[in-house]
């Protein structure tokens, strides 16, 4: 039973051996090419390798399906699975060049994503305005509301007890220390962080986002009422408008993006819930990238523009021009054939 047999010298026992011998060189070449692409980029390959790549990839895929059906060599099947997966990602998964992605983002992705949020944007605008009116009315009827709405740290001495002169100084005064650009950078990073947070919170069925927006409106209304009662309403709005038109717009858009996700999760309609969330999430995220850029502009306007421009009309002018610019960029009609292009 334990007798030794001698096989014919050149006849492999199993097909897997023949299969390996026939294709191993191709797999090896594909492996080397993919490794080089993973380490550097597709540009690191010479022309003949690039031309060979799709052929090698398809032949590896076909090897994989043959191996799965005819070979019992697990090492071979695992190797081919990994090789094909790596090659697939290098061939199909690599995004466009950064420059082209940027171009598509500014040309189509950003404005179209914002456009798609128009319903939510209106809702968020309504919530903010409602909060603003409520805040104004509350403080107008009973000034003690002011202390409940605005925390001490944020008020910074701007409260109903302050004199008109003190309040005037906060609107027209120079920033102490003169670190305008630092202030701008601080405002940008802080506001963006809050906006991203508001967006992310939208996932929880939009409730936190709505609360944030209404509260934002409340503080605005309360502040506005305070300044208006001291006869500084016009100046305060100017002080706010120069950056606020951009900043408030950005915050409303961030809220709208969060709301889009929250409503998609809560009311997916005919789609599966996760599918609806993915569609909403990807589009709203593109709008969010735009919101961060808007807040950068707002930070510059607030940190530098507001401190150097002291004239009311100039402040109004800059603020309204910025608003008009954003509106035109987002909502002016675009060529319709671009619409189906997925956002970058």
């Amino acid at each position, binding site marked *: 039973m*334990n*007798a*030794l*047999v*001698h*096989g014919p*010298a050149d006849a492999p*026992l*199993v*097909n*897997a*051996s023949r299969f390996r*011998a026939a294709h*191993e060189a191709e797999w090896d070449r594909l492996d080397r090419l993919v*490794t080089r692409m993973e380490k550097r980029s597709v540009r690191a390959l010479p022309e003949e390798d690039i031309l060979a790549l799709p052929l090698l990839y398809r032949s590896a*895929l076909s090897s*994989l*399906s043959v191996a799965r059906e*005819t070979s*019992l*060599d*697990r*090492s*071979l099947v695992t*190797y081919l699975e*990994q090789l094909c*997966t*790596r090659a697939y*990602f290098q061939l*199909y*998964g*690599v*995004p466009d060049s950064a420059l082209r*992605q940027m171009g598509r983002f500014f040309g189509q*992705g950003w404005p179209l994503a914002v456009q798609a949020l128009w319903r939510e944007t209106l809702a968020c605008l309504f919530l903010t305005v409602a909060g603003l009116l409520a805040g104004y009315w509350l403080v107008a009827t009973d000034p003690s509301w002011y202390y409940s709405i605005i925390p001490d740290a944020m008020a910074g001495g701007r409260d109903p007890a302050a004199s008109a002169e003190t309040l005037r100084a906060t609107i027209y005064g120079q920033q102490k220390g003169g670190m305008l*650009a*630092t202030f*701008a*950078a*601080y405002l*940008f*990073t802080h506001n*963006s*962080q809050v906006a*991203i*947070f508001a967006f*992310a*919170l939208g*996932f929880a069925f939009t409730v936190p986002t709505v609360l944030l927006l209404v509260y934002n409106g409340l503080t605005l209304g309360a502040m506005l009422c305070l300044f208006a009662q001291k006869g500084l309403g016009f100046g305060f709005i100017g002080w706010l408008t120069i950056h606020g038109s951009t900043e408030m717009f950005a915050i409303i858009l961030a809220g709208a993006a969060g709301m889009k996700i929250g409503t998609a999760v809560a009311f997916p309609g005919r789609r599966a819930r996760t599918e609806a969330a*993915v569609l*909403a*999430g*990807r*589009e709203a*995220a*593109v709008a*969010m*990238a735009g919101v961060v850029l808007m807040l950068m502009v707002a930070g510059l306007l607030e940190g530098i523009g507001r401190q150097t421009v002291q004239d009311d009309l100039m402040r109004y002018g800059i603020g309204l021009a910025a608003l008009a610019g954003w509106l035109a960029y987002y909502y002016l009609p675009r060529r319709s054939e671009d619409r189906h292009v997925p*956002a*970058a």
Partner: protein
Amino acid sequence: MFRRRDRAARAPVSLRRSFVTPEGIDLRLELASAGTRASAFMIDLLIMTGALILATVLIGLLGIAGARGEIVMILWLVGAFVLRNGWFTLFEMGGRGATPGKRLLGLRVIARDGGRLTGGAVIARNALREVELFLPLSFLGMQATQDAADGFLILFALSWTGIFLFFPLFNRDRLRVGDLLGGTWVVNNVRATLGADLVADRARHERRSFSDAALDLYGIYELQTLEDVLRKGQPDAVATVAATIRRKAGMADDGDDQDFLSDYYAALCARLERGMLVGRRREDKFAAAPPKRSA
């Protein structure tokens, strides 16, 4: 070695997912486990914290030395912001689809629908980190600063945010909330090497012959387990397996376990492959043995 174990107990949750390429081949991707992903995240976090500390120290030194304190300050503020929000997003939007931590552990972010990973998906999956990580952290910080007066509220807040933090453990695909929203998966993407051909090696030598009865003992599952044993080559495992096979097949011990197993593997592989090519695939030893060939 080949003792039957409960299949359900052996692989409680399979992390293999079907992923069909445009050419129509299923790549059967393997999702990354929650532990690997947590490790990758910790590595990223360590690098980020390290970079931030290093930058702060450098800026401190420069700030003392130079008059350009303001520019340095701005750079720090913006740099910290970009680091916190851009680290994951920018790396994952690049060609590798992975942050340094993920790359180190052989992970990759992909779109679940098989398409190309878009910027929107990457931003969505990473913006949600704010809720998953920084929200619980901020509540923890709140607890540290405040007294136990609001203890119940904070406990509630922590458990609410804990839902987001531990979300990956509660679903089959190990999705973070961010993955859910971005439509992404995190998969293993490691480089495998092709092991040597075990059968071809034996074909050139003289080998032992085995009776049909001996070769009918096992199926494909056992064959591939034997392949693992041979490739790993641990002496005690080889000895145990060889002894078991000899006992079942009623063969005498010839003293060379490694060679014996290699021969048995080659013979069994050839036999099972022959059966498979004519449509008789024997999955494991419990499946019916192929009918005897006529002499």
